[in-house]
């Protein structure tokens, strides 16, 4: 399955602590890591990798506000202009009774919006083929990968040596 047209050198680690130390060491020596794969989210890996904080929560806030405003203004319009009905002897415009639905709609919009944004940004979705390096990465192995497309044999061997030095249990090259 060749989808990215890249040649990847990767090392497999057996422990997340070892992986973290390896990432720190490799980056300290000025090497560029293509990606790191873990079977579960490893706390604190992002800053070590030099990744910026995700902005998805800002998107979430915007979606949430959209939900709040939409739900509240829609109910206000319906119950005061479009189809006024008395419920339980309350005035047409009664804020407390709007709050639960406003809250629910806010949460719904924020959640669904963030999921869709996340899928779009990551290029995920139904029908998308995802190349993988090694199936064990989804089980109990941790992986550091280098993009070695077009690199000389010496450069590749140097990187491989670095992986082994940082206690990689296994190193491989794969075209994806």
């Amino acid at each position, binding site marked *: 399955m060749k989808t990215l047209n890249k040649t990847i050198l990767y090392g497999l680690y057996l422990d997340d602590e070892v992986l973290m130390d390896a990432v*720190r060491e490799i980056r300290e020596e000025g090497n560029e890591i293509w990606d790191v794969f873990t079977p579960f989210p490893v706390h604190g890996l992002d800053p070590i990798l030099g990744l910026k904080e995700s902005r998805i929560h800002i998107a979430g806030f915007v979606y949430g506000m959209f939900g709040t405003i939409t739900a509240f203004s829609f109910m206000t319009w319906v119950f005061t202009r479009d189809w006024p009905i*008395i419920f339980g*002897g309350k005035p047409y415009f009664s804020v407390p009774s709007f709050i639960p639905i406003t809250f629910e709609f806010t949460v719904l919009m924020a959640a669904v919006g963030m999921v869709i944004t996340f899928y779009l940004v990551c290029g995920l979705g139904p029908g998308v083929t995802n190349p993988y390096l090694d199936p064990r990465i989804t089980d109990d192995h941790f992986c550091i990968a280098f993009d070695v497309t077009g690199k000389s044999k010496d450069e590749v061997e140097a990187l491989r040596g670095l992986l082994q030095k940082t206690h990689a249990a296994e190193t491989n090259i794969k075209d994806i």
Partner: protein
Amino acid sequence: MGAHHHNQPIQDNSQFVFTGKLKLFTIALIIVGAASLALTYFTGSEHAHIRFWTNLLHNSVFFTGIAFASLFFIATHTVAWGGWQTIFKRIPEAMMMFLPIGIILLGLVALAVSLDAEGTDFLYLWSDEEALKNDRLIIHKSSFLNPFNYLLTLVVIGIWTLFALAIRRLSIQQDGDRTLRKKNYEKIHMWSAIFLPIAGFSSAYAIWQWVMSVDPHWYSTLFAWYATVSVWVSAICIIYLLILFLQTRGHLQYFTKEHTHDLGKYVFGFSVFWTYLWFSQFMLIWYANNGEETQYFFLRFEQFRPVFFLNLIINFVIPFLSLMMNSAKRAKGTLGFMAGLVLLGHWLDYYQMIKPGVWYNWGHAQHAKHEHKHEGDHKHEGDHKHEGDHKHEGDHIHEGDAHKGNHKEHSDTYKLNSDNNAKAVLTDFQTPKEKEQKDDLKNLALDSAKVKTDTAHHAHDSTTHDHDHGTAGTNGHDHGNDDHAKGHDEHAHAAHDHGPSFVMGIHFPGLYELGTMIGFLGLFLFVTFSFLERASLMPKNDPYVDESKNHHVWYDL
């Protein structure tokens, strides 16, 4: 893993010293509080007594509650095998030693209630002999709301104190003996697990007696949760503020941004949870619209509006918006400021749980006295007035004014309902406004029924039906508006008639209230510091101490 710390050795002073200067400062605070309380009592104003008793009750309950929440903090975190809090757990362990002081403070209130001290009849209407004779609901509840059961709450604090002492002793014992590392931890775990269910039920019992029974006609099953979360947030705020203070003195240097973040999440999360409970209680009462229940919020909304809204702004709007971002929860300055504000906010929350109820009880009694005197002096006029009352009764009782409604009216009401039908009693607690609304609805229903019959007779004339129905709906609404306007007039009128609508120290915390709070805070700090001094700030042999020291510090890299 803690690379940050491994690189630079941390200078942590683990022995807190309660210096003479600090002692003097807390004692000065206590003197301010004592002076405020004394001045409140001797102002000579007609409200002096209720102001004094409410201030004493309010602060005693609030700070005892915080001590309870500190014990709860230790217990929940231990039961959940939590480790991150270990480096600062000596702070809640010291704070919970305020519980015995709580027995003394609430003991004073209980004693005053038992001895029927002046003003306590209004603090707890259920201790008033008049009410016990005439007020059917209070008679009905007297098997629960009575001085004996009130004294039992002291036993409840006593039980909490036993748990606090046991847990603290086991924790400190560990410091000197490494072999107790696991053994004592397991014992603390067991004590905590036993404490939690006891805490859940007993705190509800205590808070019903102390605070909810201030409005003896009213009850809410959510109240205990709501009141307990309030002190829980306050306890977390005090813990954080104490951490900041101790850090300036070279203690708790292992306390990182990660710990700050976790406490920030607590302040944020539990502020939202508090709001959730507040709103759940409010909305159900507002929606069901039973006079007996709405009376609670009606009083607070109509007469204590600044406190009512300030409560929501300080405890929800501000922390919600300002602590929403990660960076705000992790910033010392922001979280420190918010902790102070939210602490004050929850103090205000307890203020508005207690003051309005007592004010209502007092106004009630004053009105009854006035009425009585009037009748005695001018018999004819008295009768006349009585008639007048009956005429206006509809508008009169409920606008939420403290001075309206009186024992006489109530006893009349009860006589009418001598069949002891609970439902009938409830109906009579409805406000006339609500009754009118209900009548409107009934009329509306009748109208539609009539229309239905009409439609049956003239099945083809569907346009008329819609039209009629629409008109009925609109009329109902208009009428509601009129009623609302009338309500406002009545309110203004009543306030003019029966006394001031704003009294400093009742409708809003005055200087004496703030002074009293400062005094209690001083006492609380005095106790906390005294106990902090008696043990190492850093638990030496707690199995989780290393985990807590290295509470993932990634983001600092």
